[in-house]
């Protein structure tokens, strides 16, 4: 633990980068009204999570986890397996999100979040007033 504390600034630098990317993706999802830009921001957020898992698995001086006689030290293969699944699930979510965006565009004629909420206002007010 002492080695981690003494070299903490440099050894945890990768987490600074990861958190910066995560926060940037989060900001794009929250602040931008356009649905397509939100989905791109979500993709950036997912990519930062991949880094969060894979970076601690890397062993300096090791190689890719494909066993061969020439190498003795390998990087950790377990995060690779988990993130491979995560990437494919991410693209599945993206495809569904884009299909929903296309349907929203056809129903509301816009893909800006503010316009969609404003178009729903009369319906929401009507439902609120007629509720018992």
């Amino acid at each position, binding site marked *: 633990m002492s080695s981690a504390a003494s070299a903490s600034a440099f050894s945890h630098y990768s987490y600074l980068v990861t958190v910066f990317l995560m926060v940037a993706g989060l900001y794009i999802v929250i602040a931008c009204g356009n649905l397509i830009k939100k989905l791109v921001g979500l993709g950036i957020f997912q*990519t930062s999570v991949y880094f969060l898992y894979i*970076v601690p698995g890397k062993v300096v001086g*090791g190689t890719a986890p494909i066993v061969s006689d020439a190498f003795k030290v*390998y990087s950790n293969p377990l995060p690779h397996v988990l993130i491979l699944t995560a990437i494919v699930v991410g693209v599945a979510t993206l495809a*569904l999100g884009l299909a929903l965006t296309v349907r929203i565009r056809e129903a509301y004629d816009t893909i800006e979040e503010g316009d969609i909420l404003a178009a729903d206002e009369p319906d929401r007010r009507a439902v609120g007033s007629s509720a018992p």
Partner: protein
Amino acid sequence: MAVVVVLLARSRNLFGVVLLGGVYSFLTATVLVALDAVDVAMTEASVGAGISTVLFLGALHLCKSEDARPARRPWPALALSVAVGAVLVYGAQGLPAFSDPASAIHQHVVPRYLNDAPKETGVPNIVTAVLASYRGFDTFGETTVVFTAGAGVVALLRRRRPGRKP
């Protein structure tokens, strides 16, 4: 990569946003190769930079809009994001340091995979062996998720009668 992300956040032309996303995916794949994650890099390059960009461009064409409106009142969102970032950086101090061979993630199950997988499965690529054999149930679920996504898109975008909007 940080430069690409900042440009993406500030850009308003949607076509540029999608292309910058593709560039970001390629840069991610390159960094992943430097981190010895070759399987993940190949998947990220083909899926993230290839298929994702194609789907985005297809959806953009269907949505027929070119420009995003600028974010109104961005300062609360920015403050919230920075606060979340500060909390995460504070929490990340407890995570394993970069390339520490004695950290917890290298113990327990991984040495068994690295030592026994070539003998038990005969497959040199440990990632494929773990994915298809040791953790085969997870891959089965993932294949089902991909199938469900395809079925969901078919359900959302199917046309009942040609030439008439449902």
